[in-house]
């Protein structure tokens, strides 16, 4: 159930449930922590922890071969681990829905995140993904819903980037100026 007052994280969970997502592949990110926990506790979903993000593209293919829908939750740095496997969606034409929390984006305090963060949308587009970007809480649910529709109705890789303007930059204990 999605309500106007619900947190955008809860809205993502409700949207995934409404699309009958059964397998949730993830490498944790703080921005996804609430969602991961909700998926772990959902009877209709299996939360699958990965050692590296590219496992998700292969797992997603297996799930689809067996008739189940899946989603991948990861951080932008994880996209860099996936490049060869992202191409599988174009080759086999199967749905690949990815919700990506951004680092190296608006106001990042850790410079080691910046290069992959800035390359993330380009890498996704280069491998044939449709990329949506969300900066405002009210846009999260409609965008995830639209992305899921395009992925599962179109046998298409679709990524939603949850920007740092939405999730906030990690402060590392430093007072933000």
């Amino acid at each position, binding site marked *: 159930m999605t309500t106007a007052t619900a947190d955008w994280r809860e809205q993502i969970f409700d949207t995934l449930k409404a699309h009958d997502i059964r397998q949730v592949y993830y490498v944790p990110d703080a921005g996804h922590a609430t969602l991961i926990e909700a998926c772990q506790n959902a009877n209709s979903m299996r939360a*699958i922890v990965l050692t590296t993000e*590219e496992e998700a593209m292969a797992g997603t293919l297996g799930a*689809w071969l*067996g*008739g189940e829908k899946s989603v991948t939750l990861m951080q932008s740095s994880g996209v860099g681990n996936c490049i060869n496997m992202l191409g599988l969606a174009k080759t086999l034409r199967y749905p690949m829905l990815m919700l990506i929390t951004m680092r190296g984006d608006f106001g990042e305090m850790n410079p080691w995140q910046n290069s992959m963060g800035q390359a993330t949308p380009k890498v996704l587009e280069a491998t044939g993904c449709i990329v949506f970007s969300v900066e405002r809480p009210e846009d999260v649910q409609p965008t995830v819903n639209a992305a899921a529709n395009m992925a599962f109705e179109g046998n298409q890789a679709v990524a939603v980037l949850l920007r740092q303007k939405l999730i906030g930059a990690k402060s590392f204990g430093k007072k933000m100026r």
Partner: protein
Amino acid sequence: MTATLHRRAVVKALMKDPTDDLLVIAGLGQCTWDITEAGDRPQNLPLWGGMGGAVMIGLGLALAQPQKRVLVITGDGDMLMGLGSLATVAAQRPVNLAVVVLDNEKFGETGNQATHTAPVSAGPSERGAGTDLTAVAHGCGIADSATVTQDSEIAALARDARTKAGPIFRNVKVMIETLPNTVMPPKDGAYLKDRFRQAVLGAA
């Protein structure tokens, strides 16, 4: 110890008289030719790419189709690229998944360079790390992991791969062979995916 098992004979035994509920994923390279030589069928997914992903495709499929048997047949090169997936499998404990690695200790598609499973003691261009994939799988949490080296073990290997409660992992030491590809599988990924889904799920 020199391997004596022929990979094609092992795969033929693994896939003998397949029923429709046997779903087979083959890692790219020789394993894709091996399963096709044993008999191309819609319930086979012969991979032409996606190196390192065979086990994870098997996991996603096994979780989606718990009533069917999922058999991943792949090589040591593909397995080494996706070692972490063994831990991911162990965390999910799919009872219907078997992973069989045909370990010839070589990257066979690229000029037979030694992989990490080759012995430490061999010559400079043959030297590996002696990596024991069975120990890796066991260490990742797949309790039922074993190595197969003898012809007399093949019948039990095939029985376990097809019927034993999983997840099971078998590392089969096979000879280095250059084999003719008399039958090639279809190459179109979308076609392979669609025919597989139609066979498993019925008409879309």
